[in-house]
Each structure stands twice: as C-alpha cells, then as structure tokens.
C-alpha cells in the first residue's frame, strides 16, 4: 500500500467474502490497529516467535512445540519437561506415581526399594535377637540390592 515490501498478509473472511490485505510492517501496526481480528492474528504471530524456555537436548523439542501439539517429542522429553508436566498430570491423571506393570525382565526400582526396606527390618530384628550371622547375611544382601537402584 505504501510501496514498502509487504511482510504481513491478512486474509479475512467476513460473511463468506474473502479479502486479502497486504501490509508492510509499519502500516500493519497502524492500519491493523482498528481491527480486532488483526490483534488476535498479531498475538498468534508473537506467540509462535516466542523464544522457547525449555529444549529437549535429545530431540530438540521445545515447550512451545508442546503448547502447539499437546504431545511430546521423545521419551527423554518426560525428564526434560518433568516440572511443567507434573502440574498437568496432577489435573488429568489419578496420581503422578506409576502403579502398574513394568516391562518384562525389569524389576522396578520401587520393588527393589521395598525389598531393601523389608531386608532392613529383618536385619534389625536379627540384631535384636543377637542372630549376628543372619544379620550379616542380610547386610550383604542389602548392599547388593542398593547397587541396582539409582543413588538419591
């Protein structure tokens, strides 16, 4: 409209009639001011050019991609986006701790932790009843189990 190359293209459909308007950036800021639809468009454009706050190092998926797609990029994203996802999970899921099956051949860490606490209780009991042989055996067992879970 003003001779400068148009970089903002607005397509409006009003009562079935399609109109296309092309603005340069300066005109867009002026000309679009009176148009509520244009404001929405501008907001959308800004949202898509926002800088991502979190990026998955494995698959380069960002928090903005998540807002756009509602789905994650790869299994590692679950670690990367743990904090914001936790909030979401709290609202859509029953709880944030898995309670179901584990893949075949994989003893879940929780199960191992449970085994450790049972063995600990047994060991304390063995010590109290002065059964030191059994206590030592349990101590070794616990040490072995502890190598199978991540240290906290």
């Amino acid at each position, binding site marked *: 409209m003003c001779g400068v190359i148009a970089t903002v293209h607005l397509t409006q459909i009003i009562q079935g009639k399609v109109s296309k308007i092309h603005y340069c950036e300066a005109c867009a800021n002026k000309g679009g001011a009176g148009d509520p639809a244009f404001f929405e468009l501008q907001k959308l454009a800004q949202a898509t050019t926002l800088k991502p706050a979190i990026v998955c190092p*494995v*698959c380069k*998926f960002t928090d903005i*991609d998540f807002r756009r*797609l*509602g*789905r*994650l*990029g*790869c*299994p590692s994203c*679950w*670690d990367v986006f743990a904090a914001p*996802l936790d909030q*979401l*999970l709290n609202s*859509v*899921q*029953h*709880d*944030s*701790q*898995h*309670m*179901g*099956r*584990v*893949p*075949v*051949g*994989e003893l*879940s*860490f*929780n199960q191992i932790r449970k085994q450790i606490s049972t063995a600990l209780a047994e060991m304390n009991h063995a010590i109290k009843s002065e059964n030191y042989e059994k206590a030592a055996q349990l101590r070794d067992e616990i040490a072995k189990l502890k190598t199978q879970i991540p240290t906290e």
Partner: protein
Amino acid sequence: MSVEDILSAENELTHLLGAQQAVVLSTRVRLARNLQNHPFPGWAKEAQRKEIADKCIKALTQLSRFKKAHIFKMSELTDLERTVLVERHLVSKELITGKSGAAVISRDQTCSVMVNEEDHLRIQVVKAGWHLRSTWNIAEQLDDALGSSLEIAFSDKLGFLTACPTNVGTGLRVSAMVHLPGLCLAGHIEKVSRALGQDGLAVRGWLGEGTEALGNIFQISNQQTLGLSEEVIMKHLGNWIKNLVEQEWNARRKLAEEEGPRFTDRLARSLAVLRSAHLLTSVESMNMLSHLRMACDLGYLPETSRHLIDRLIIEGQPAHIQARHGKDLDSDGRDRSRAIAVREALAGLPEITEPSA
C-alpha cells in the same frame, strides 16, 4: 494378503456364532508402548519413522500370535481399503491420516498392532461379548513378548512413556462397546453418560473419539492411565459395565411392559423396512438393526440371529459396501447396494412375535 482377505475371512466379530451377547458387543484392550531412544511418531523425521516401523514390524512378525498375519503399510493401501480397516476398528482414523503408519493384524482379527500412530506401538485385542479377563490376558502376553525383543521406554515414576500425557503410566485403555437402545429410547442416556464422565469414564460413539452414537452403540472406556494399576482400572470399568447392563435391561423391560403392542410394533416396523427398502442409508440401517438386535435379546426374534445382525452392522458401513461391490458407487448406489445386502441377509428371519411369558 490384502484387505479383501480381511473382508472375506471368518472372524471373531462377524462370524463367531454363539459368542455374541446381549448389550455388550465387544471388549477391547489397548496398550500404548514406545521404543526407548526414538522420537515419538509425531515428532520423528520420515527416515526415523521408517526405521521405527521396520523394527516394530520385525519384532511383531516373530510372535506366534502373528503367524501369517496381515501386514499393511498405510501408504500402500487405497483410501477405500484404509477406511474398511477403520470401520472394522482394526486401525484408527489417526493412523490412516498420519505418515509411515502400518498395522499388523492377526489372522483371526482379534489382535491388531498399529505402528507409528500417536505412539510407536498400539497393541489392541478385541473379543466379541464381555470378556475383560481373557482379552487382557492376551494383551499382557503380547506386551511381554514384545518387551523381550524391543527396548520399551519406561520410567520408574511415570511407567510406560507415551507421546501424550493422557496415556502415560499403564498406557492402558480398556473399553466395552455397548448397545443401549433401552436407555436411549427411555431418554436416560445423557444422565448415564454424565454419571460415567464424572466417575472417570469416557463415552464415545461407534467409531471412537468425536463420532456420533450410531445405532445406539457406545464405546465406554477408562480415561486415567497413571496412578492406578491395571487391575484397578479394569475393576472400575467392569463394575460400571455390570451396572450399565443391568440398567439397560431394566429400561428395556419397562419399555416393553409400558408400551405393550407399541413396542412390538416398533420392532416389527424396523424389520419390515429393512426387508423391503430399496434404498437404505447407513444411519437408517444402523438404527433399525439396533431394534432387531434388541428384538433378539428379548426373544422377539431367535437369539441365534444376533450374530447376523452384528455382521450387518459392520458390513453395512459405507466403505464395506463399496469394497464388496467392487465398482465406484455414488451415495444412491451405496444405499441400493446396502438395501439388497440387508434384504438378502434378513430374508430367512421369522416375523417379530411377542415372547411367550
């Protein structure tokens, strides 16, 4: 192996005489699984998706349950063939519109695994009637067998990792396809579906998410997948289905009693139209077949005819009619073709008669 084989083969849902039950048409168990260290299908690049598909298909075809299985790559099928698979509930709409999607379907069509849908693997097992335990057992076996040849993405805290936060944890969706003409006719269906919704269950139409309840058929499934064990999820759905079946029977009995001859007339009219119409739309035939199914359940028609009705419900869908006919049909042509198929199938049925008390 082609989609044609799927149509002509005798299978669980359309031919298994005697397995059909009143109210619950089928039980379905679905598990969402993903490969470790691979981007989810929606974010993966074409080459990655191909690699994922190859890996998954290779693992699947080694399982005994998928001996001589159908393997379909969506890109190699026609639009019509893809739609036939959707109408059979063997694959989802999302799979056929996505890229590099594939499906491995067992010979008897009870097990189908979608590859590269929203997740890398969607294991599905379906059985006619209400058989939650045995359906689950097959899914569990498949899951274990796949887990021993593929590295599955899993976290101790979040369980099975999925693309969408609504599936994470167990990745389990259990559902029942239920036929509720009694509750629909009595006008209670909204109340019922609200109650189900408030108790964490989703109510959907015949073809799943975002589809209408054709033929008074609804799909009821759990919504939450994390923080609950598979046992708890199944028990919850199981209790509701038991309750729903009871409510449906009560509604039917009440209707039959209160409406008397009007109720019999309604069923008889549906049979008459289905047996003599020359043009039948799929909506019309679904809704009338629904009446006939109820007639079988209540003894107005022989119970042994129920499997015939179930077969027509599936085979009367648009893509099925088109595929059987072979040539391109316009909408009138389909309605004609459907009317002929239905008329022929129902020719041997006796008239609707009130059951003797």
